[in-house]
Each structure stands twice: as C-alpha cells, then as structure tokens.
C-alpha cells in the first residue's frame, strides 16, 4: 500500500494544456476521487500516475520514490478501465491470472491466487467462462480481480462504472466501497459522476480546465465549496448564485444585499467593493412572506420526498428544495428566506470563495 504524491504536474499536447501544475498528496489507504467534467484533465492525471502518459513537467512520487519516468510495469500499480479491457481471447480465470503470468509466477501459485481473488469477488463459479458471456457487473468484477490479484501498491480506476446501467452502478458503488474497506488499498478513482464520488470517496479532488479547484472530504466540498465552479458542479440542482455589489469587512455578520441587509456567516477577510455572489444551496431556502428576496413561482418538479421549486427573482432564477407536502401555485408571488448559517460568498472576478466562519479550513488546489 502506498502514498501517492503529485508535484507541479503538468501535461500539454502541442498547444493544448491538459493538466496544469497541480500538487497534492493521496494518503495511504485513501479512497481518492478525481471529479470533474469531461476534458478537465482528470483522466490524463490518472494516466500519468499509471505511467501510460509521460508528464511535460513535474514529479510523481510513490511512497517517496520518484517514479515519474518509470515505465508502467515498474510502478506496481493496477489500472481498471472503463471498457474493462478484458482480453476476449482468454477466459475469466486467465484474465485474472494474466498479471501474474506476466511476472512469470509458477502456474500452481497463480491458480491459488486467482481462486482467492475470485472468492473475494464472489465470481468463483465464473472462472472458466468466456468473458463475452458475462454481464456488465461481472465483467467489472473480473476487471477488479485482475487488478487485485497482483496486490499492487495502488488501484487506479478510470470511470470503472461508466459503462454500467444506472441500477447496477449503484450496486457496484456499494461493492467497490466495501472492497476498499476490506483491502484498504490506496485507490484513485476518476469519475464525472458526483454521486459516485460523494458516495464512495474519502477525499474528492474537483478538477476544472486542468486545475484542481478543491480537495476535501465530500462534506467539505459540498458545504464549503472553494470556488463557484465547485459550488456549481456539485449538487443537483446546483448552488444558486445571487449577484450583488459591495465591500466586506472582517468580522461582519451581514452583507448589504441590494437594498436589504442579509445575515451571513462571520466574514474573515476584508474586501474592497466588487461584484460578489451570494451562494445558496436549494435546501437552505424557505418560503416566508417576510423574506428579503421576492419572486414569482415559475415551476415545480416533484421528486417524491422533496420538490424543486424554481422562482424568478430580480436577481435571476432560483431553485429551492421544499418538502413535497408544501403547496405551491405557479405564478404566485412569494418571499424567500435563507438559512443564514449556511450561506457562501464568492468573488465573481476570481470565482473564488470568500473566507467566512464556515469556509475556514478549505484547501485550494
């Protein structure tokens, strides 16, 4: 098992920069998710860690050892691909045993290790099947088995559940996390699906345009987004941004939002007057006649336990998550009240969060 350290890692293809100078450490035994939209550089970062791509600049350290230019096979890392990449000309057992065969292990030992791995994944009964006959979930288990059988220092997974249907993905999320808890291997997991990242990861790195925007636990990333991008990318529906202009002083507990004063968590930095955004999660909005922000109900989306109500206000369209029992009429004018302790503030110019009592402790990438 291993700690992975990335230092100033950069990768460019001709004129295009895929990954831009990120530095972070993945601790031993962590389930680390890299989350971001497609093209954000997460897969390229993963491939550099694996040795399938060489960085333009920077270093990759495995347990303190610089492996930046080691070839893939010399790193003792296992990779799980989205398309599973099971060899079609081998059966399940041969697929799982393949990495050991590459190492030249004795046949009897390979058989034992394959058996043991298959038992762990509950696919013993499939060992002599053809891979083409397997279901998506079983293929994924075989791919995992092929990764596990070698007992590598770390697992790298590139959207391993991306090719499964929604129902199965949920099941495999649980299995993957369970497996991680049992073998405690450092795992780097790339996904664009925030639900996968949130439900499995110990740490999430949110990436955008080649940069790591924020690294934190799922709670930190959700509750204390470091930038407007993170706030917008995580959460469904995403955080609402209400624009206003104003200056801030450290110690303030309220901001002047257009004509009214809005309570916010204690501000921890001074700012000259600039365009700002008030960030509100949909679940931190209540309907109240006395609410400072007023608007007209535009529509409601029923989701079972809750409903998402969209309201047109003078500062843009706002989504609120209300109990499904609340009665809402389209077109009616209502007041919105925010949960003051959970509000976030952003500087629109830089897109970064402004330090407040709840924002303390976040790490910028």
């Amino acid at each position: 098992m291993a700690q992975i350290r990335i230092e100033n890692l950069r990768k460019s293809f001709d004129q295009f920069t895929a990954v831009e100078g990120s530095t972070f450490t993945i601790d031993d035994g962590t389930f680390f998710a890299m989350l971001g939209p497609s093209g954000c550089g997460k897969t390229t970062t993963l491939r550099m860690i694996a040795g399938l791509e060489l960085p333009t600049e920077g270093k990759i350290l495995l347990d303190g050892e610089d492996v930046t230019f080691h070839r893939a096979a010399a790193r003792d890392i296992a990779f799980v691909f989205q398309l599973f990449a099971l060899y079609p000309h081998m059966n399940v057992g041969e697929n799982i045993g393949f990495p050991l065969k590459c190492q030249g292990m004795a046949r009897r030992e390979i058989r034992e290790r394959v058996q043991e791995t298959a038992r762990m994944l509950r696919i013993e009964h499939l060992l002599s099947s053809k891979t083409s006959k397997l279901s998506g979930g079983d293929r994924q288990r075989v791919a995992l088995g092929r990764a596990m059988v070698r007992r590598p220092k770390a697992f790298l997974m590139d959207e391993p559940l991306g090719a499964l249907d929604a129902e199965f993905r949920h099941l495999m999320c649980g299995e993957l996390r369970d497996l991680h808890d049992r073998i405690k291997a450092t795992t780097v997991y790339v996904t664009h699906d925030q639900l996968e990242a949130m439900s499995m990861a110990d740490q999430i790195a949110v990436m955008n345009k080649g940069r790591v925007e924020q690294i934190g636990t799922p709670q930190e990333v959700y509750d204390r987004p470091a930038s407007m991008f993170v706030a917008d990318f995580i959460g469904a529906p995403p955080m609402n941004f209400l624009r206003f202009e104003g200056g801030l002083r450290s110690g303030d507990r309220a901001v002047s939002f257009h004509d009214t004063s809005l309570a916010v968590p204690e501000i921890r930095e001074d700012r000259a007057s600039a365009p700002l955004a008030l960030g509100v999660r949909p679940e931190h909005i209540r309907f109240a006649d006395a609410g400072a922000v007023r608007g007209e109900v535009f529509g409601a989306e029923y989701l079972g336990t809750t409903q998402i109500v969209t309201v047109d206000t003078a500062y843009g369209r706002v989504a609120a998550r209300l109990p499904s029992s609340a009665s809402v009429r389209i077109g009616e004018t209502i007041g919105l009240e925010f949960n003051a302790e959970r509000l976030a503030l952003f500087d629109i110019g830089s897109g970064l969060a402004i330090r407040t009592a709840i924002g303390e402790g976040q790490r910028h990438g």
Partner: protein
Amino acid sequence: MTAAATRSTAHSIVEASPRTKAFAGGLVILYAVITILPLLWIVATAFKSQSDAIAYPPKVIFEPTLEGYVNLFTVRTRQTPDFIAKLPPPETWYDQLVRKRDMVIAGPSKVVPRFVNSLIIGFGSTFLAVFLGTLAAYAFSRFRIPLADDLLFFILSTRMMPPVAVAIPIYLMYRQLNLTDTRLGMILLYTAVNVSLAVWLLKGFIDEIPREYEEAALVDGYTRLQALRKVVLPQAVTGIAATAIFCLIFSWNEYAFAVLLTSGEAQTMPPFIPFIIGEGGQDWPAVAAATTLFVVPIVMFTVLLRKHLLRGITFGAVRK
C-alpha cells in the same frame, strides 16, 4: 398493434419479401455461374487431348486423358517408329502415353522450379508486407507521430499509379543492383507494392481495437512489444488474414514485372504458363493443367483463412 394490423402490412422494413430474396438469390447464382464456368472449363481442358481442346464447336463431352499433365511436367523428343520399337518396353504409364504419340521423354520440364519460385516469392513477399505493415500500422494507430497524416498520404500515393508505370526505372535500377532475375529482387518489389495496402488496411483494423487492452497489459507488466505480440496481434488476426490474402493474390498473379525482370532462375508461373509450347503451337491442355495447379494454392490459402476473411470484411460493424 394488433395481429390483424401486423398482417395487413405488405412487408416489413427489415425483412426482405420472399420475392426479393428469390431475386437476390438468383443474381448470386448467376454471378457464381459466370465466374466459376471459365475455371471449370480450364479444369476440363487440362484433361482433353490436343485436338479436343481446340475442336469447334467446343466439346463438352470428351474422352479424358492425362496427356496435358504429362506434357506439362516433361520435355519430349519425336522419334521414328522404328527407334521406338527397338526401345525396351515402357517402364511407366506416362512413358507409354508419350510413346503412343511417337515421342520419348527427354527429361523433366521447368514447371516445378517455376512453381517453387512462385511459392517462395508470393508467400515471402506477403509475409514481409504484412509484417512491416502491421508494425507501421500499429505505430500510426497508437503513437503521436509528427506529420502522421502526410506520411500516410505519402504511403497511399505509391498506389495512385499502376506499378507498371515505373517498370523501366525499376528495371534499370535492378540491373544496376544485380537484382534482375533473383528471387530476392522479386520479393522486395512485391513487398514494396503491397506494404502500402497493408499499412492502410491494418491501420483500420488496429484502430478498432481499444487501446485499453494493451494499456492494461502494459500496467500488468508487459513491455510494448510483448503487448503488441500477445494482446494486440491475437485480436487483429482477422485483419491480418484479410490483408495477407489481398497481398498474396497480388504477388501471385503479377505478370508485367515478372515478364520484365525474370527470365530464368527466378521466373514465376505467370510468365511461364503462356510459353508452354507443344509441337505446332500452343499446347492448350498443358497450359490448362498448369493454370489449374497455379490456382490451387491461392484457393487453399483463401479457404483456410475464409473464416477470418468473412469476419474481417464485416469487422467494425458490430461493437463487441
């Protein structure tokens, strides 16, 4: 939709109607007859006597003889009946066959060495073209190569004119290099012509193989070449088989260069067959016999690789 409504539809969009199927089947059979008939005629002519072979109207029913094959494999001299009568009795059936025509066998003809030349040059150049083509196609498919598109176009451009257009320069070049009438020369020439086809065909096939397969192998401990040999090649077998057949057919049938560049030692079958001359002109049964034997290896090769060839042609249609 109800059953009645289904029945009221004249024919479905996906399933051809019986009439369409019958028509299509008829066309296929007609085409098969048109293409197979000349082959059958050649096979039959090989068993005809000289006079039956050139009879008009053509004889469909005739008395079969092995004279054509005997003439193909032997060189004979005409003798007087007195001389033949004085000889010891014929030792073999073909001696007997030849003596009936007042001739004796003087020795073997050159057909066997020519056939061996064809085999060595045909399969040798096919192997080289496919081998080089696979490596080049893999590189073009997987690595970032500066000017890759220009290089690929350059490779393709070598096929934009008929190879014979450069026959004279090649002849001069070969004379300078002492490659005329050598097997090596012919293998190199056919390889050069075929390798462009091989690169383009194989690149298409290798592009279709997800690179994750070999990347998985790279991570699991293989070197790049091991991954190519043990992971990529087994999956590219269909493409390689299809390419090999195309290359072999070209080099096996090639006539113009063979006439120009070979005359003795390295002569292949195509320039040899037309000059099988008997007494008083072309020995048609012997020519037909040679043609029959000439077709056999390519038919065998194609039949052996047929399974792969069919999959090769439809490859990429269905994502596995």
